[in-house]
Protein backbone atom coordinates (compact mmCIF):
# COMPACT_ATOMS: atom_id res chain seq x y z
CA UNK A 1 0.00 0.00 0.00
CA UNK A 2 1.29 3.39 -0.98
CA UNK A 3 1.62 5.71 2.02
CA UNK A 4 3.16 8.99 0.89
CA UNK A 5 1.40 11.48 -1.35
CA UNK A 6 3.10 11.73 -4.73
CA UNK A 7 3.25 15.50 -5.06
CA UNK A 8 5.53 15.28 -8.09
CA UNK A 9 2.86 13.27 -9.91
CA UNK A 10 0.20 15.86 -9.15
CA UNK A 11 2.37 18.73 -10.36
CA UNK A 12 3.01 16.91 -13.63
CA UNK A 13 -0.63 15.93 -14.06
CA UNK A 14 -2.03 19.46 -13.62
CA UNK A 15 -0.93 20.82 -17.03
CA UNK A 16 -2.17 17.65 -18.73
CA UNK A 17 -5.61 18.02 -17.14
CA UNK A 18 -5.71 21.76 -17.82
CA UNK A 19 -5.73 21.04 -21.55
CA UNK A 20 -9.18 19.56 -21.04
CA UNK A 21 -10.51 22.47 -19.00
CA UNK A 22 -11.49 24.12 -22.28
CA UNK A 23 -14.05 21.42 -23.01
CA UNK A 24 -15.42 21.71 -19.50
CA UNK A 25 -15.80 25.48 -19.74
CA UNK A 26 -17.28 25.25 -23.22
CA UNK A 27 -19.95 22.90 -21.91
CA UNK A 28 -20.68 25.17 -18.97
CA UNK A 29 -20.89 28.31 -21.09
CA UNK A 30 -23.15 26.81 -23.77
CA UNK A 31 -25.22 25.10 -21.12
CA UNK A 32 -25.66 28.34 -19.21
CA UNK A 33 -26.48 30.30 -22.36
CA UNK A 34 -29.31 27.97 -23.40
CA UNK A 35 -30.47 27.50 -19.81
CA UNK A 36 -30.80 31.26 -19.41
CA UNK A 37 -32.91 31.67 -22.55
CA UNK A 38 -35.16 28.76 -21.62
CA UNK A 39 -35.40 29.95 -18.01
CA UNK A 40 -36.56 33.43 -19.06
CA UNK A 41 -39.19 31.92 -21.37
CA UNK A 42 -40.42 29.57 -18.63
CA UNK A 43 -40.47 32.33 -16.01
CA UNK A 44 -42.46 34.69 -18.25
CA UNK A 45 -44.93 31.92 -19.12
CA UNK A 46 -45.44 31.21 -15.43
CA UNK A 47 -45.77 34.86 -14.44
CA UNK A 48 -48.30 35.56 -17.21
CA UNK A 49 -50.03 32.25 -16.50
CA UNK A 50 -50.36 31.63 -20.24
CA UNK A 51 -53.20 29.05 -20.54
CA UNK A 52 -52.09 25.40 -21.12
CA UNK A 53 -48.45 26.34 -21.74
CA UNK A 54 -48.36 27.47 -18.12
CA UNK A 55 -49.22 23.99 -16.86
CA UNK A 56 -46.70 22.44 -19.24
CA UNK A 57 -44.02 24.79 -17.91
CA UNK A 58 -44.91 23.79 -14.36
CA UNK A 59 -44.61 20.10 -15.24
CA UNK A 60 -41.27 20.68 -16.97
CA UNK A 61 -39.87 22.53 -13.96
CA UNK A 62 -41.16 19.92 -11.55
CA UNK A 63 -39.63 17.04 -13.51
CA UNK A 64 -36.21 18.58 -14.03
CA UNK A 65 -35.95 19.69 -10.41
CA UNK A 66 -37.38 16.43 -9.16
CA UNK A 67 -34.98 13.98 -10.79
CA UNK A 68 -31.17 13.68 -10.63
CA UNK A 69 -29.14 15.31 -13.36
CA UNK A 70 -27.31 12.03 -13.98
CA UNK A 71 -30.60 10.22 -14.63
CA UNK A 72 -31.67 13.00 -17.00
CA UNK A 73 -28.39 12.77 -18.91
CA UNK A 74 -28.74 8.98 -19.26
CA UNK A 75 -32.36 9.28 -20.38
CA UNK A 76 -31.40 11.85 -22.97
CA UNK A 77 -28.28 10.17 -24.33
CA UNK A 78 -28.83 6.45 -23.87
CA UNK A 79 -32.63 6.30 -23.69
CA UNK A 80 -34.38 8.72 -25.99
CA UNK A 81 -32.53 7.87 -29.25
CA UNK A 82 -34.26 4.47 -29.18
CA UNK A 83 -37.58 6.20 -29.64
CA UNK A 84 -36.52 9.30 -31.54
CA UNK A 85 -34.15 8.12 -34.29
CA UNK A 86 -33.31 11.72 -35.17
CA UNK A 87 -31.43 11.89 -31.86
CA UNK A 88 -29.32 8.85 -32.63
CA UNK A 89 -26.62 10.94 -34.30
CA UNK A 90 -26.33 13.30 -31.35
CA UNK A 91 -22.79 13.42 -29.95
CA UNK A 92 -22.08 13.19 -26.24
CA UNK A 93 -21.01 16.83 -25.94
CA UNK A 94 -24.30 18.05 -27.43
CA UNK A 95 -26.27 15.71 -25.20
CA UNK A 96 -24.44 16.98 -22.13
CA UNK A 97 -25.08 20.61 -23.08
CA UNK A 98 -28.79 19.91 -23.68
CA UNK A 99 -29.10 17.98 -20.43
CA UNK A 100 -27.36 20.68 -18.40
CA UNK A 101 -29.49 23.37 -20.08
CA UNK A 102 -32.79 21.66 -19.32
CA UNK A 103 -31.82 20.81 -15.76
CA UNK A 104 -30.52 24.23 -14.81
CA UNK A 105 -33.25 26.08 -16.73
CA UNK A 106 -35.77 24.55 -14.34
CA UNK A 107 -33.96 25.97 -11.31
CA UNK A 108 -33.10 29.29 -12.92
CA UNK A 109 -36.70 29.78 -14.09
CA UNK A 110 -37.85 29.70 -10.48
CA UNK A 111 -35.27 32.23 -9.39
CA UNK A 112 -36.07 34.55 -12.32
CA UNK A 113 -39.79 34.19 -11.61
CA UNK A 114 -39.19 35.13 -7.99
CA UNK A 115 -37.21 38.19 -9.08
CA UNK A 116 -39.98 39.25 -11.47
CA UNK A 117 -42.62 38.91 -8.76
CA UNK A 118 -40.41 41.00 -6.49
CA UNK A 119 -40.60 44.01 -8.80
CA UNK A 120 -43.28 46.44 -7.61
CA UNK A 121 -46.43 45.93 -9.64
CA UNK A 122 -46.73 49.67 -10.20
CA UNK A 123 -43.87 49.31 -12.71
CA UNK A 124 -46.03 47.18 -15.01
CA UNK A 125 -49.01 49.48 -14.44
CA UNK A 126 -46.90 52.42 -15.56
CA UNK A 127 -46.04 50.49 -18.75
CA UNK A 128 -49.69 49.74 -19.46
CA UNK A 129 -50.73 53.31 -18.68
CA UNK A 130 -48.61 54.70 -21.51
CA UNK A 131 -49.95 52.15 -23.99
CA UNK A 132 -47.28 49.46 -23.85
CA UNK A 133 -48.34 45.82 -24.04
CA UNK A 134 -47.65 43.44 -21.15
CA UNK A 135 -44.96 41.74 -23.20
CA UNK A 136 -43.25 45.04 -24.01
CA UNK A 137 -43.40 46.02 -20.35
CA UNK A 138 -41.97 42.67 -19.36
CA UNK A 139 -38.98 42.81 -21.69
CA UNK A 140 -38.16 46.51 -21.49
CA UNK A 141 -38.90 47.38 -17.88
CA UNK A 142 -39.58 44.39 -15.63
CA UNK A 143 -36.94 41.87 -16.80
CA UNK A 144 -34.07 44.39 -16.80
CA UNK A 145 -34.91 45.22 -13.18
CA UNK A 146 -35.49 41.59 -12.24
CA UNK A 147 -32.19 40.54 -13.82
CA UNK A 148 -30.35 42.74 -11.35
CA UNK A 149 -32.10 40.99 -8.50
CA UNK A 150 -31.55 37.53 -9.98
CA UNK A 151 -27.92 37.94 -11.05
CA UNK A 152 -26.28 36.75 -7.80
CA UNK A 153 -28.32 33.55 -7.71
CA UNK A 154 -27.91 32.98 -11.46
CA UNK A 155 -24.16 33.23 -10.99
CA UNK A 156 -24.43 30.62 -8.27
CA UNK A 157 -26.13 28.34 -10.77
CA UNK A 158 -23.36 28.99 -13.26
CA UNK A 159 -20.76 27.93 -10.71
CA UNK A 160 -22.87 24.92 -9.87
CA UNK A 161 -23.09 24.09 -13.56
CA UNK A 162 -19.30 24.14 -13.97
CA UNK A 163 -19.07 21.45 -11.31
CA UNK A 164 -21.96 19.50 -12.80
CA UNK A 165 -20.22 19.24 -16.17
CA UNK A 166 -18.09 16.53 -14.52
CA UNK A 167 -21.05 14.17 -14.96
CA UNK A 168 -20.60 14.43 -18.72
CA UNK A 169 -17.72 11.97 -18.46
CA UNK A 170 -20.34 9.26 -17.95
CA UNK A 171 -21.55 9.98 -21.49
CA UNK A 172 -18.01 9.76 -22.79
CA UNK A 173 -17.25 13.44 -23.20
CA UNK A 174 -13.50 13.94 -23.10
CA UNK A 175 -13.52 16.64 -20.44
CA UNK A 176 -11.32 17.21 -17.47
CA UNK A 177 -12.92 14.57 -15.21
CA UNK A 178 -12.71 11.92 -17.93
CA UNK A 179 -9.04 12.66 -18.39
CA UNK A 180 -8.40 12.40 -14.65
CA UNK A 181 -10.20 9.08 -14.57
CA UNK A 182 -8.10 7.78 -17.45
CA UNK A 183 -4.84 8.91 -15.85
CA UNK A 184 -5.85 7.31 -12.56
CA UNK A 185 -6.65 4.02 -14.23
CA UNK A 186 -3.29 3.81 -15.97
CA UNK A 187 -1.08 5.03 -13.08
CA UNK A 188 -3.11 3.54 -10.21
CA UNK A 189 -2.55 6.87 -8.42
CA UNK A 190 -6.25 7.39 -7.81
CA UNK A 191 -5.97 9.80 -4.92
CA UNK A 192 -3.41 12.03 -6.64
CA UNK A 193 -5.36 12.09 -9.91
CA UNK A 194 -8.67 13.00 -8.35
CA UNK A 195 -7.01 15.48 -5.98
CA UNK A 196 -5.48 17.19 -9.01
CA UNK A 197 -8.83 17.49 -10.76
CA UNK A 198 -10.47 18.68 -7.52
CA UNK A 199 -7.83 21.43 -7.21
CA UNK A 200 -8.58 22.62 -10.72
CA UNK A 201 -12.35 22.76 -10.14
CA UNK A 202 -11.71 24.54 -6.89
CA UNK A 203 -9.49 27.18 -8.50
CA UNK A 204 -12.04 27.79 -11.26
CA UNK A 205 -14.88 28.14 -8.75
CA UNK A 206 -12.87 30.52 -6.57
CA UNK A 207 -12.11 32.59 -9.66
CA UNK A 208 -15.79 32.87 -10.64
CA UNK A 209 -16.83 33.57 -7.06
CA UNK A 210 -14.46 36.54 -7.12
CA UNK A 211 -16.09 37.74 -10.33
CA UNK A 212 -19.49 37.26 -8.72
CA UNK A 213 -18.54 39.57 -5.85
CA UNK A 214 -17.26 42.21 -8.24
CA UNK A 215 -20.46 42.04 -10.28
CA UNK A 216 -22.60 42.30 -7.15
CA UNK A 217 -20.75 45.38 -5.97
CA UNK A 218 -21.26 46.97 -9.38
CA UNK A 219 -24.96 46.11 -9.38
CA UNK A 220 -25.46 47.69 -6.00
CA UNK A 221 -24.00 50.91 -7.31
CA UNK A 222 -25.94 51.25 -10.60
CA UNK A 223 -29.17 53.32 -10.64
Amino acid sequence: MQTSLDVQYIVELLPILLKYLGVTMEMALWGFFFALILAVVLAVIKVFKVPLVHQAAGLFISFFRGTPLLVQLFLLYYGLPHYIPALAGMDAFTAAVIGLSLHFAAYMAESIRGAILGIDKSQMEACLSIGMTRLQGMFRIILPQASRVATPSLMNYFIDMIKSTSLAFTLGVAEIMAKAQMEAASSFKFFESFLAVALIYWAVVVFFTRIQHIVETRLNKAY
Partner: protein
Amino acid sequence: MITVQNLSKSFGQNQVLKDISFEVNAGEIVVIIGPSGTGKSTLLRCLNYLETPTSGSVEIGTAKVDAACATNKQISSLRKQSSFVFQNYSLFANKNALQNVAESLITVWKEPKKAALEHAQTILKQVGLADKADQYPSQLSGGQQQRVGIARAMASKGEVILFDEPTSALDPEWVEEVLVVMKELARQKQTMIVVTHEMQFAKEVADKVIFMEGGHIVETGTAKQIFDNPEHNRTKAFVARAAKNALTSFDSSML
Protein backbone atom coordinates in the same frame (compact mmCIF):
# COMPACT_ATOMS: atom_id res chain seq x y z
CA MET B 1 -64.91 63.17 -25.73
CA ILE B 2 -64.99 60.98 -22.63
CA THR B 3 -68.19 59.16 -21.78
CA VAL B 4 -68.47 56.88 -18.78
CA GLN B 5 -71.72 54.97 -18.48
CA ASN B 6 -73.04 52.93 -15.57
CA LEU B 7 -69.57 51.99 -14.40
CA SER B 8 -69.48 49.62 -11.43
CA LYS B 9 -66.58 47.85 -9.78
CA SER B 10 -66.52 45.30 -7.00
CA PHE B 11 -63.61 43.67 -5.25
CA GLY B 12 -65.19 40.41 -4.15
CA GLN B 13 -68.19 41.36 -2.04
CA ASN B 14 -67.02 44.94 -1.69
CA GLN B 15 -68.74 47.17 -4.26
CA VAL B 16 -66.44 50.14 -4.59
CA LEU B 17 -67.96 51.95 -7.59
CA LYS B 18 -71.72 52.11 -7.93
CA ASP B 19 -73.17 52.99 -11.29
CA ILE B 20 -70.93 55.92 -12.17
CA SER B 21 -71.79 58.00 -15.24
CA PHE B 22 -70.30 61.28 -16.43
CA GLU B 23 -68.93 63.06 -19.46
CA VAL B 24 -65.87 65.17 -20.10
CA ASN B 25 -65.44 67.44 -23.12
CA ALA B 26 -62.19 68.01 -24.95
CA GLY B 27 -60.06 70.62 -23.19
CA GLU B 28 -61.96 70.38 -19.94
CA ILE B 29 -60.25 70.11 -16.57
CA VAL B 30 -62.27 67.92 -14.22
CA VAL B 31 -61.34 67.65 -10.56
CA ILE B 32 -62.61 64.76 -8.46
CA ILE B 33 -62.76 65.28 -4.69
CA GLY B 34 -64.03 63.16 -1.84
CA PRO B 35 -63.01 61.36 1.34
CA SER B 36 -60.43 58.59 1.15
CA GLY B 37 -61.62 55.06 0.52
CA THR B 38 -64.43 56.44 -1.65
CA GLY B 39 -63.29 54.87 -4.89
CA LYS B 40 -61.62 57.82 -6.59
CA SER B 41 -58.45 55.92 -7.45
CA THR B 42 -60.44 52.90 -8.52
CA LEU B 43 -62.50 55.09 -10.87
CA LEU B 44 -59.39 56.56 -12.53
CA ARG B 45 -57.82 53.10 -12.79
CA CYS B 46 -60.96 51.76 -14.45
CA LEU B 47 -60.79 54.55 -17.04
CA ASN B 48 -57.39 53.18 -18.03
CA TYR B 49 -58.34 49.54 -17.45
CA LEU B 50 -55.63 49.14 -14.85
CA GLU B 51 -58.65 47.75 -13.00
CA THR B 52 -61.25 45.86 -14.98
CA PRO B 53 -64.71 47.27 -14.24
CA THR B 54 -67.38 44.78 -13.24
CA SER B 55 -69.87 46.41 -15.59
CA GLY B 56 -70.43 49.57 -17.60
CA SER B 57 -68.63 51.24 -20.46
CA VAL B 58 -65.79 53.69 -20.94
CA GLU B 59 -65.39 55.70 -24.11
CA ILE B 60 -62.41 57.94 -24.75
CA GLY B 61 -61.88 59.53 -28.14
CA THR B 62 -62.27 56.82 -30.74
CA ALA B 63 -61.99 53.91 -28.32
CA LYS B 64 -64.91 52.35 -26.53
CA VAL B 65 -64.83 49.42 -24.13
CA ASP B 66 -67.83 47.77 -22.55
CA ALA B 67 -66.96 45.59 -19.57
CA ALA B 68 -69.45 42.97 -20.76
CA CYS B 69 -67.53 42.29 -23.99
CA ALA B 70 -64.10 43.84 -23.63
CA THR B 71 -61.42 42.53 -26.00
CA ASN B 72 -57.67 42.95 -25.52
CA LYS B 73 -57.56 45.00 -28.68
CA GLN B 74 -60.19 47.44 -27.41
CA ILE B 75 -58.44 47.73 -24.08
CA SER B 76 -55.12 48.44 -25.72
CA SER B 77 -56.62 51.14 -27.94
CA LEU B 78 -58.39 52.65 -24.92
CA ARG B 79 -55.09 52.80 -23.05
CA LYS B 80 -53.49 54.70 -25.90
CA GLN B 81 -56.16 57.38 -25.51
CA SER B 82 -55.17 58.22 -21.98
CA SER B 83 -52.17 58.31 -19.71
CA PHE B 84 -51.75 58.21 -15.99
CA VAL B 85 -49.84 60.17 -13.38
CA PHE B 86 -49.40 58.07 -10.25
CA GLN B 87 -49.44 59.20 -6.66
CA ASN B 88 -46.08 57.51 -6.04
CA TYR B 89 -44.70 58.56 -9.50
CA SER B 90 -43.92 54.97 -10.59
CA LEU B 91 -41.14 56.07 -12.89
CA PHE B 92 -39.28 53.25 -14.63
CA ALA B 93 -36.47 52.62 -12.16
CA ASN B 94 -34.08 51.26 -14.80
CA LYS B 95 -34.43 54.27 -17.12
CA ASN B 96 -33.18 57.82 -16.73
CA ALA B 97 -35.54 60.82 -16.93
CA LEU B 98 -35.16 61.20 -20.69
CA GLN B 99 -35.66 57.47 -21.35
CA ASN B 100 -38.74 57.46 -19.12
CA VAL B 101 -40.31 60.14 -21.29
CA ALA B 102 -39.13 58.59 -24.57
CA GLU B 103 -40.29 55.05 -23.76
CA SER B 104 -43.81 55.33 -25.18
CA LEU B 105 -42.57 57.23 -28.22
CA ILE B 106 -40.21 54.35 -29.02
CA THR B 107 -42.25 51.27 -28.10
CA VAL B 108 -45.82 52.42 -28.68
CA TRP B 109 -45.56 55.10 -31.34
CA LYS B 110 -42.54 53.58 -33.08
CA GLU B 111 -40.62 56.82 -33.46
CA PRO B 112 -37.00 56.26 -34.48
CA LYS B 113 -34.86 56.28 -31.34
CA LYS B 114 -32.98 59.47 -32.10
CA ALA B 115 -36.11 61.45 -32.96
CA ALA B 116 -37.89 60.06 -29.91
CA LEU B 117 -35.09 61.19 -27.60
CA GLU B 118 -35.10 64.68 -29.11
CA HIS B 119 -38.87 64.81 -28.82
CA ALA B 120 -38.62 63.64 -25.20
CA GLN B 121 -36.04 66.33 -24.49
CA THR B 122 -38.44 69.09 -25.60
CA ILE B 123 -41.13 67.65 -23.31
CA LEU B 124 -38.70 67.50 -20.38
CA LYS B 125 -37.94 71.14 -21.08
CA GLN B 126 -41.63 72.00 -20.78
CA VAL B 127 -41.66 70.64 -17.23
CA GLY B 128 -38.43 72.47 -16.43
CA LEU B 129 -36.17 69.46 -16.25
CA ALA B 130 -34.06 69.74 -19.40
CA ASP B 131 -30.93 69.58 -17.25
CA LYS B 132 -31.98 66.39 -15.44
CA ALA B 133 -32.31 64.24 -18.57
CA ASP B 134 -29.64 61.74 -17.60
CA GLN B 135 -30.61 61.36 -13.94
CA TYR B 136 -32.21 58.16 -12.72
CA PRO B 137 -35.42 58.40 -10.67
CA SER B 138 -33.55 57.54 -7.46
CA GLN B 139 -31.36 60.61 -8.02
CA LEU B 140 -34.31 63.03 -8.31
CA SER B 141 -36.36 64.75 -5.63
CA GLY B 142 -40.03 63.81 -5.26
CA GLY B 143 -41.12 66.95 -7.06
CA GLN B 144 -38.74 66.30 -9.92
CA GLN B 145 -39.85 62.68 -10.18
CA GLN B 146 -43.47 63.70 -10.39
CA ARG B 147 -42.67 66.26 -13.08
CA VAL B 148 -40.95 63.52 -15.06
CA GLY B 149 -44.10 61.45 -14.45
CA ILE B 150 -46.18 64.23 -15.97
CA ALA B 151 -43.75 64.56 -18.89
CA ARG B 152 -44.01 60.81 -19.50
CA ALA B 153 -47.79 61.09 -19.53
CA MET B 154 -47.62 64.05 -21.92
CA ALA B 155 -45.37 62.11 -24.29
CA SER B 156 -47.73 59.19 -24.60
CA LYS B 157 -50.05 61.23 -26.84
CA GLY B 158 -53.25 60.37 -25.01
CA GLU B 159 -56.33 62.58 -25.34
CA VAL B 160 -56.59 62.87 -21.59
CA ILE B 161 -54.18 62.71 -18.68
CA LEU B 162 -55.47 61.08 -15.50
CA PHE B 163 -53.89 62.33 -12.27
CA ASP B 164 -54.31 60.29 -9.09
CA GLU B 165 -53.40 62.57 -6.17
CA PRO B 166 -50.20 63.72 -7.89
CA THR B 167 -49.01 65.80 -4.93
CA SER B 168 -50.14 63.67 -1.98
CA ALA B 169 -46.90 61.75 -1.62
CA LEU B 170 -44.75 64.87 -1.86
CA ASP B 171 -43.02 66.77 0.90
CA PRO B 172 -44.82 70.16 1.14
CA GLU B 173 -41.81 71.96 -0.35
CA TRP B 174 -42.22 70.14 -3.68
CA VAL B 175 -45.99 70.51 -4.10
CA GLU B 176 -45.96 73.92 -5.70
CA GLU B 177 -43.59 73.07 -8.57
CA VAL B 178 -45.82 70.17 -9.58
CA LEU B 179 -48.98 72.29 -9.40
CA VAL B 180 -47.29 74.92 -11.56
CA VAL B 181 -46.69 72.35 -14.28
CA MET B 182 -50.29 71.16 -14.04
CA LYS B 183 -51.63 74.69 -14.24
CA GLU B 184 -49.56 75.29 -17.34
CA LEU B 185 -51.10 72.17 -18.91
CA ALA B 186 -54.54 73.47 -17.96
CA ARG B 187 -53.74 76.77 -19.64
CA GLN B 188 -52.87 74.85 -22.81
CA LYS B 189 -56.31 73.21 -22.65
CA GLN B 190 -54.96 69.74 -22.08
CA THR B 191 -57.92 67.56 -21.07
CA MET B 192 -57.33 66.33 -17.52
CA ILE B 193 -59.12 64.41 -14.83
CA VAL B 194 -57.47 65.14 -11.50
CA VAL B 195 -58.12 63.46 -8.17
CA THR B 196 -56.73 65.80 -5.55
CA HIS B 197 -57.04 67.24 -2.08
CA GLU B 198 -55.60 70.56 -3.26
CA MET B 199 -58.79 72.60 -3.05
CA GLN B 200 -57.08 75.82 -4.05
CA PHE B 201 -55.89 74.16 -7.25
CA ALA B 202 -59.42 72.91 -7.92
CA LYS B 203 -60.87 76.39 -7.48
CA GLU B 204 -58.30 77.90 -9.80
CA VAL B 205 -58.33 75.55 -12.75
CA ALA B 206 -61.32 73.18 -12.64
CA ASP B 207 -64.02 73.57 -15.26
CA LYS B 208 -65.98 70.93 -13.43
CA VAL B 209 -65.75 69.44 -9.95
CA ILE B 210 -67.10 66.02 -9.08
CA PHE B 211 -67.72 65.17 -5.44
CA MET B 212 -67.63 61.43 -4.76
CA GLU B 213 -68.52 59.53 -1.66
CA GLY B 214 -69.11 55.86 -0.94
CA GLY B 215 -68.67 54.85 -4.57
CA HIS B 216 -71.26 57.33 -5.84
CA ILE B 217 -71.02 60.67 -7.57
CA VAL B 218 -72.87 62.82 -5.08
CA GLU B 219 -72.71 66.10 -6.92
CA THR B 220 -71.19 67.65 -10.03
CA GLY B 221 -70.86 71.34 -10.76
CA THR B 222 -68.53 74.21 -11.46
CA ALA B 223 -65.87 74.89 -8.85
CA LYS B 224 -67.93 77.85 -7.70
CA GLN B 225 -71.08 75.79 -7.24
CA ILE B 226 -69.36 72.98 -5.36
CA PHE B 227 -67.21 75.09 -3.07
CA ASP B 228 -69.45 78.13 -2.48
CA ASN B 229 -72.92 76.77 -2.93
CA PRO B 230 -73.11 72.98 -2.68
CA GLU B 231 -76.57 71.42 -2.96
CA HIS B 232 -76.03 68.28 -0.93
CA ASN B 233 -75.37 68.19 2.77
CA ARG B 234 -72.62 65.64 2.29
CA THR B 235 -70.82 67.93 -0.13
CA LYS B 236 -71.28 70.84 2.27
CA ALA B 237 -69.80 68.86 5.13
CA PHE B 238 -66.80 67.71 3.10
CA VAL B 239 -66.06 71.16 1.68
CA ALA B 240 -66.38 72.78 5.09
CA ARG B 241 -64.05 70.24 6.62
CA ALA B 242 -61.53 70.70 3.80
CA ALA B 243 -61.62 74.49 4.23
CA LYS B 244 -61.11 74.16 7.97
CA ASN B 245 -58.18 71.81 7.50
CA ALA B 246 -56.61 74.19 5.02
CA LEU B 247 -56.87 76.99 7.58
CA THR B 248 -55.62 75.10 10.60
CA SER B 249 -52.85 73.17 8.94
CA PHE B 250 -50.08 73.94 6.54
CA ASP B 251 -49.58 70.28 5.97
CA SER B 252 -51.77 69.32 3.04
CA SER B 253 -51.06 65.64 3.63
CA MET B 254 -53.25 65.77 6.72
CA LEU B 255 -56.37 66.22 4.61
